[in-house]
């Protein structure tokens, strides 16, 4: 397919009707006139909340008006959230009881592999990035992964298959190692700070630095619960809101990368997995997706909802998981309401670009959260919301 040609020809048909353009001209003319009038010194607003701000400009008045509305809305939301959290905690608790999986069968590892640390260990196995080969001719590269037992012997590896190319810098593999299923997600993380540093120190163009620097994130895990095996992972691209969840149904080795489908009206994203019984819902917080607003629910023997903050609720400032062994995991600290889009605020970080390390940390924390049978209770904004 000649991409450029076909897309161009197709989009040529997307044009405004003449009447639409005329209407737009009229609307702009009216708005332009209104703005000019409003900005005249001493202009008095006809009525409403703006009367007391008659000497300020259009934008100031709008902001003050919206601000007041927001304050009222926020007050209502604060009242509502207390009730919502209580109800949700009760529901969560009842769903918790349905999980019957064996604790020792559940192992998760998610770790960042950098140039200094090419190996991760889990379940008596070592997964190591041996090499990254970049094929100039096709402009894409591939990773060479080795899997060994910790005693140095080679495990039985079979049925290894590439499940999906997410993009040139990300791919997903499934493999049986010593008869147990694993899923491995490779990501070549463009660590923005390191690339910037490389550019500064070598004078290299960013494009070249990107190609030459590989910071690799690898997630591997398995989860056996009764006879069903699922693995759940997620990744975000280095910036903002790309969010995906992978599910591996290990008996059939089928996999699905779940992607967003907007659900009209409430701002939630709904999606269904390979198994119709599994539904993911994840929400939007203050203008960006947040993995901690993730709810997982299974109909059957598999786990379990995590804490969900629904869009429209007041921001969560802090979530702490208190595990049964007494350890605490702070999930969200110093949560800053999003002022601009494209800012991440999670795991104690708030910045334009998340580094690969932060990404891995968030992944690890979420996966810990999914091991909900280890959880004693959650503290949300300091309040205990889930008690076993």
């Amino acid at each position, binding site marked *: *397919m000649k*991409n*450029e040609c*076909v*897309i*161009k*020809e*197709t*989009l040529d*048909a*997307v*044009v*405004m009707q003449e009447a*639409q*353009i005329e*209407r*737009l*001209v009229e*609307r*702009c*003319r009216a*708005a*332009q006139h209104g*703005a000019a009038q409003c900005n005249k010194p001493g202009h008095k607003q006809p009525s409403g909340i703006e009367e007391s701000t008659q000497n300020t400009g259009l934008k100031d008045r709008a902001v003050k008006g919206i601000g007041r509305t927001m304050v009222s809305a926020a007050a209502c939301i604060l009242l509502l959230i207390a009730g919502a959290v209580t109800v949700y905690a009760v529901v969560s608790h009842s769903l918790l009881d349905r999980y019957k999986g064996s604790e020792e069968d559940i192992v998760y590892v998610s770790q960042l592999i950098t140039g200094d640390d090419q190996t991760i260990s889990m379940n008596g196995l070592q997964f190591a990035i041996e090499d990254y080969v970049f094929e100039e001719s096709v402009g894409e590269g591939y990773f060479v992964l080795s899997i060994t037992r910790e005693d140095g012997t080679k495990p039985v590896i079979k049925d290894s298959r590439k499940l999906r*190319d*997410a*993009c*040139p*810098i*990300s791919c997903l593999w499934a493999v049986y190692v010593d008869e147990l299923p694993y899923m491995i997600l490779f990501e070549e993380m*463009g660590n*923005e700070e390191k690339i910037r540093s490389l550019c500064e120190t070598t004078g290299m163009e*960013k*494009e070249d630095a*990107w190609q030459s620097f590989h910071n690799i994130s690898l997630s591997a895990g398995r989860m056996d619960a009764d006879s069903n095996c699922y693995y759940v992972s997620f990744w975000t*691209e*280095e*910036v*903002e*809101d*790309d969010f995906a969840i992978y599910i591996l149904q290990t008996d059939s080795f089928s996999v699905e990368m779940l*992607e*967003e489908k*907007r*659900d*009209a*009206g409430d*701002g939630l994203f709904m999606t269904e997995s390979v198994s119709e019984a599994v539904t993911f819902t994840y929400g*939007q*917080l*203050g*203008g*960006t997706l947040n993995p901690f607003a993730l709810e997982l629910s299974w109909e059957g023997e598999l786990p379990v909802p995590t804490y969900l903050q629904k*869009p*429209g609720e007041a921001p969560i400032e802090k979530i702490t998981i208190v595990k049964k062994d007494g350890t605490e995991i702070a999930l969200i600290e110093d949560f800053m309401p999003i002022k601009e*889009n*494209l800012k991440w605020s999670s795991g104690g970080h708030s910045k*334009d*670009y998340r580094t690969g390390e932060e990404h891995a940390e968030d992944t690890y924390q979420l996966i810990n959260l999914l091991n909900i049978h280890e959880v004693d209770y959650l503290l949300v904004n300091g309040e205990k919301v889930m008690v076993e």
Partner: protein
Amino acid sequence: MNPKENLERIIRAYSNDLYRILYVYCKNKSDCEDIMQGAFLKLYETNTEFESDTHVKNWLIKVAVRDALNLQKSRWRNYVELDENIAFTDEYHLEVFEALLKLKPKERMILLLYYYEGYSVKEIGVMLKMAEGTVKSKLHRSRGRLKTVLKESDWSEE
């Protein structure tokens, strides 16, 4: 050039360009018109010194794209379905368009900016506040997804 004195001409000249980008992203006529009105009003109010009509067009596209992203991210936003049909003269392009609309919003926008408007990966990155690598990967992924969708619908190249 001074946009304040030429606003009506500018609206007529660039409405289709803005509309195309916004429609493919928002899939909703009313949202497109609201965003466009906002962009033209911002143009009227800006003190930016414009060197040429192309400069104005690029400025408008950037503002409109940013506003569209913000609108979509708004937590108060209600999402509405596609509200009109585009008049295609043949099935061939209709199927491509329908396949295009099945992509994720940002992927659709990137494809359009790259293939239709001819922006470079770098320019799209600046416009959407994305790293170039992210734009590249999204381009790659959306091309692949477009092909898959078209294959599923038995679309054949002419």
